Structures are given as C-alpha cells and as structure tokens.
C-alpha cells in the first residue's frame, strides 16, 4: 500500500493550495504595493515550478530534444502573450 500511495502528488497538491492561499492573502491584508507584488511574484514562480516538476513530469523525459523544443515553444508563446499584451494594451495604447 505504501508504494502505491502517490505521496509527492498529494504533497504537491497541498502545497499548491497553500501557495494559492498565500497569494490570496495579499488581497485581504493591507500590504504595500511592493510587498504585495513581491509575494505574488515569488508564489507564482514557486507554483509554476511545482506544477512543471510534479504534475507535468518535466525532467522525467529521456528525450532531450523534444523537451527543449517544447520549452522553447512554450516560452515563445508565453513571452509573446504577456509582453505583447503589455505592448498593445499599455505601452502602445493612446
């Protein structure tokens, strides 16, 4: 039974809930802008790496080139979406 229990996944699930709660706390406690943003950024990065490592099995793949292509494509789309949105909606907006 012990081997069958997916301990890392359950731990990951609990951690992601905790991280979400910490992020939510920024709204409920009266924090300064920098403090709030710092907490949000840190929880976001930890959350993302948690998802990638535990649930998306990054690093368990023996096929390196597929992995890197995947990451490159994801980075491309992510960066384009975020910077592109800032570009069209904030920096370049009349």
């Amino acid at each position: 039974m012990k081997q069958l229990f997916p301990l890392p996944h359950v731990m990951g699930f609990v951690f992601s809930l905790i991280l979400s709660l910490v992020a939510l706390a920024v709204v409920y406690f009266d924090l300064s802008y920098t403090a709030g943003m710092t907490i949000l950024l840190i929880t976001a990065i930890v959350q993302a790496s948690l998802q990638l490592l535990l649930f998306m099995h990054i690093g368990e793949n023996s096929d390196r080139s597929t992995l890197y292509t995947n990451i490159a494509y994801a980075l491309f789309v992510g960066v384009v979406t975020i910077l592109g949105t800032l570009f069209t909606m904030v920096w370049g907006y009349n």
Partner: protein
Amino acid sequence: MKWDEFFVTGEPMIYASMVAIAVVSLAIPIGLTYFKKWGYLWNEWLTTVDHKRIGVMYILSALLMLFRGGVDALLMRAQTARPENGLLDAQHYNEIFTTHGVVMILFMAMPFVIGLMNVVIPLQIGARDVAFPRLNAISFWLFFAGAMLFNISFVIGGSPDAGWTAYFPLASPEFSPTVGNNYYSLALQISGIGTLMTGINFIVTILKMRAPGMKLMKMPMFTWSVLITNVIIVFAFPVLTVALALMMFDRQFGTQFFAMQNGGMDMLWANLFWIWGHPEVYIVILPAFGIYSEIISTFARKNLYGYKSMVISMVAISMLSFVVWAHHFYTMGHGVMVNSVFSITTMAIAVPTGVKIFNWLLTLRKGKIEFTTPMLYSLAFIPIFTIGGVTGVMLAMASADYQYHNTMFLVAHFHYVLIPGTVFAVIAGFYYWFPKVFGFRLNERLGKLSFWVIVVSFNVTFFPLFILGLNGMTRRMYTYSASTGFGPLNLISAIGAVGLAIGFIILVYNIYWSVRYSPRDTTGDPWNARTLEWSTHSPVPVYNFAKVPTVDSLDAFWFSKKNKTPLAEGAYEPIHMPSNSGMPFIMGIAFFFAGFFLVFSWWLPAIIAGLVILGTMAFRTFERDHGYHISVEEIERTEEALRGERK
C-alpha cells in the same frame, strides 16, 4: 431569474422550433425502442473508444451543426434581402448572427476537422488507435455537451447576442442582462476543454505511435498538418480557457476584470480573445491544407512538390499565427507603433501561404489530373482562397483598415477564406475518405452537381458583399433604408444563399442515394491513392491493420503497389485493444447539466453535477482495465471475410 423568462416567448418561429425539438426528442427514444436499437446504440456508439467511430460521430454532429448554422445564415440573408424588412427584429437578428458565428467556427468547422483527424490519422501513420482512446471519447462527449448546451439557448433563456467575439463591455451583465452570454462562456468552456485534450492526444499519437520506419520527414502531409495544428491547439486554447473563466467571474460572481471602472479593462477581453482567435483560424485552416495536399497529389498522380518547404511553411505559419492578433482591432485605440508592427507580421503570413499555393500548382504541373469530386473542390479552392488571401493583405494594412473595419468587406473576406479554406476542404475530405469508413464511394455525378451548385452560389452570395462593404454597409446591421442603395446587391446575395442551401441538400441526398445504391468497394483503395490508410480493408476492421506495416519512404503504399512489395511481413500476432467504456458519455451528461445549472446560477444543482464529474474521475482512478486481446484465429476469420473469401 423569473420563471416566465425561462422559455423564450413571443416569436412564432421559436414556438415552431420548440415543437420540432419536442417531436424529435420524443421520436428518438420511441424509434429506438420500436426497432430495439438501444443496445446497438449503447454498445457500438455511446461507449465506443474506437477512433473511427468517434470520428464518424464528430462528423455527424458537425453536419448537424452545419445545417443549424446554415439556417441562421439563411434567416440573416432573408432579413437583409430588401430594405426595411420586418422578418426579424433587432434583438433576434443579434442573436442569430452571434450563434451563426459560434456554431460555424466552434461547433461545425472544428469538429469536422477533428472528426477527419480521428478517422484518418491513426490509419495514416499505421497505428491501431490514438494514444489515449478513452480520453478521445471524453473529448468527443465534452464537445457534444458544449454544442448541445449552446444550442438549447435559443428556446431556453435566450441566445447570446453580443457577436461571436462577445466584446466587453457589451457582453457584460450591465448591457447583456439575459443568460445568453452565460451560455456562451460555459458552452465554449466545456467544448474547449475537450479540444485541448484532443490536442494533447494527437500530438502524442503522432510523435509516439507511427509505424516502424516512418521518420518525421516521411509522414504524409495531412499528418504533418495535424501535428502542427494540435501544437497550436495546446498553446492557444489555454488563453481562451482563462478568458472565458474571467468572463464567467465577471458575469456571475461580480468581478471587474473587463469592467470599465475599478481597475478593470474592457479591451483586455478583445485582446485575450484574439490571442486565441487568430491561431484558431489556423487550427481550422492548416488541416485543410493537409487535406488538399493529399487529394492533389493523389489525383495528379504525382508526389507532392516541395515537401520540405511545405513543412517549413506550416511551422512558420504556426509561429506567425501567435504574433498577429492585434490586426483584429486596429481601430480601437492603439498607437502607430503597435499598428505598424502588427501590419508587418500579418503581411508576413502571406509569404509561407504563398509558398504552399505555388507548391500545389507545381504538383499539378504535368500531372495526369483526374477530375473527381474531391479534386474539383481542391482545384476550386486555389483561386477562390487566393481572393480571400489578397483581400486579407488589404485588410492587414492598418491605415487602410480604418476604411474596411467592421464593414461587409471584412465579412466577405473571411467567408472567402474560411469557406474555400475549411468548408471545401472538409467536404473534399469527406468525399475522399468516405469509402474508407463505409466501404463505398459517394455518387460522383451527384457530387459534381452539388459541387457546381455550391461553388457558383458561394460566389453569388459573397462577392456582392465586397462591393457592399466598399459602399459603406457595416456588418451586423439588421436593416437599412432604401435610399442607401444597398438593396439590389443584398438581394443577389440572398439568392446565392438559397443556392448554397440547395447545394448542401444535394450533398445530403447524395449520402442517402449512395447508401442505398452505390456499388460496394472491395479493393480498399478505390482512388488508387498513396498513403497507408488505403492499404487496409474498407470498411476498416476494428484493429485497423492485421499486421503493422513497415515504412521506408514517403508514400510507402504507392511504392509498394508499384514495386509489388508487401508492406508487412510475418505471421499474425494477437492484438491488444482498449475496451469500451460508458464513463465518457456519463461524464458528458454531467458536464452538460453542470453547465446548464451554472448558466442560470442554480448553485446547488450545479455543485451536485460537479460532484458527479469528480465521481467519474475517481471511478476511473480506481478502475482496473487492461483492455482485451483479439486472438490470431479471430484475425484470420475477419481478414478472410473482408477479402470476400468467406461469407
């Protein structure tokens, strides 16, 4: 929510459709009981995980939705056929152009393309099924639940009415107080999750399950196009998922993401929508390019010209499709810098697309062309699509777009892209692969008749819209005065729309006629084609290939026919197959009800339906199902029967 708002009232057409829905939903169970078909329906279709059957169900639903969206289109064209027409009021017209757009893109084009992928891809790469057959069934039932949820909106609660793009603030609860746009966010969300899973499923299938020897650069062009399409799906759909979730929060939980005050930003919706929306265009166009490549090279009896450049241009299109989205809202307040950047990226897409057009033309050059129905569609596609593409470049110029934006010129442009691009392709693919699935061809004479009716009527319907747009007619106008002079061209367009309807009716009649009278094909290769799917029997046995083929070149089946070398050797071995499951179907029903209750903000029933969804997942987690094996004797028996050696 008051109960008298639950059913849509006050329109004779709505009452008629309510009666029709009631009659159909009574007739189906009565018919099934009378003909004792419940068991057949459950065992062979509702619980199936066979990619071919799932594909057939996708295509059937897509045809159904084609007619639903087509009726919307006919109503719109009838309403605008003459000035000051009173057939529809403004509200009804708004609902109809909204549902026409959503149904045609998300519930007709997408499932038709995904249906063809399902039927063809495993066969084309020499696999026995997709990588995750059960997930595939879930994808289908989620799509179906979403489609049905969207479709009941017009009799229960009212349809969405803010356009298929549902721009904020118009789609906010303040300006769209009916439940219509709740249907929009939830139905699209449910079917979108299904699409996302299809994306992952097909990427894994194509990367991991190809026949031995089929290197990436030896894959058929349709397989390549589907691989790239699914990569786009996986990267584009999450944006829609997030945008729809934010929309739901805004409409039903009082958040202000897309509001105009309290730090919200209404334009952010348009931005997120098109970050998904433009790649979506390529999700429905790239597989179409793949279909045309297969058909053109088959009926020109030549290998595809410029295989490598075809692949490279598709990869280029997939990257470019993510960096052009702002061209959909040039006029909504950006500075010169933003508009210039997006103008340039948009025009850049014309380059790889042009490369593909020339590749097809050079494939045709000096070929022994055979004018079958699928080939006719492919040949008609090239010039008509080019008109769509060239007007696209006109629209891509930001400064000129201030003139075209939101006029009928734009409407004409995207119909000139999507109809020859996607609709002709799926019809061509339907004619082309039909004999593979059902074992007989559709009638060629009726096929060619409907082709000519459709192609001519298409141009009669949509060409006048270019001129109307340049004359200043804006889209989504439910009526206009006679003094505008828009009357005659709109009348011509309406006549064309009737022609299109006739063309599609002939197509359906052709299916009926061919089921009854078409001669059965025993070769499995009625078109003398090139790719692996034609090397097995038609209709395809459940295990696809009795022996897994080995591939050493592009168009391996063509060369095995020419050199008379067999594709597979060795003795039969027992085949491992996935077993059927009712779980995906039950999950689809649960999702439908969860969505329906959420639309009306009935939280308690929605939570219960949500628990049923979680229950099906928990059930799956603890289920032990290792599939089953087909024995060698059974394979021999099936193969002999399919070769006609045993009755």
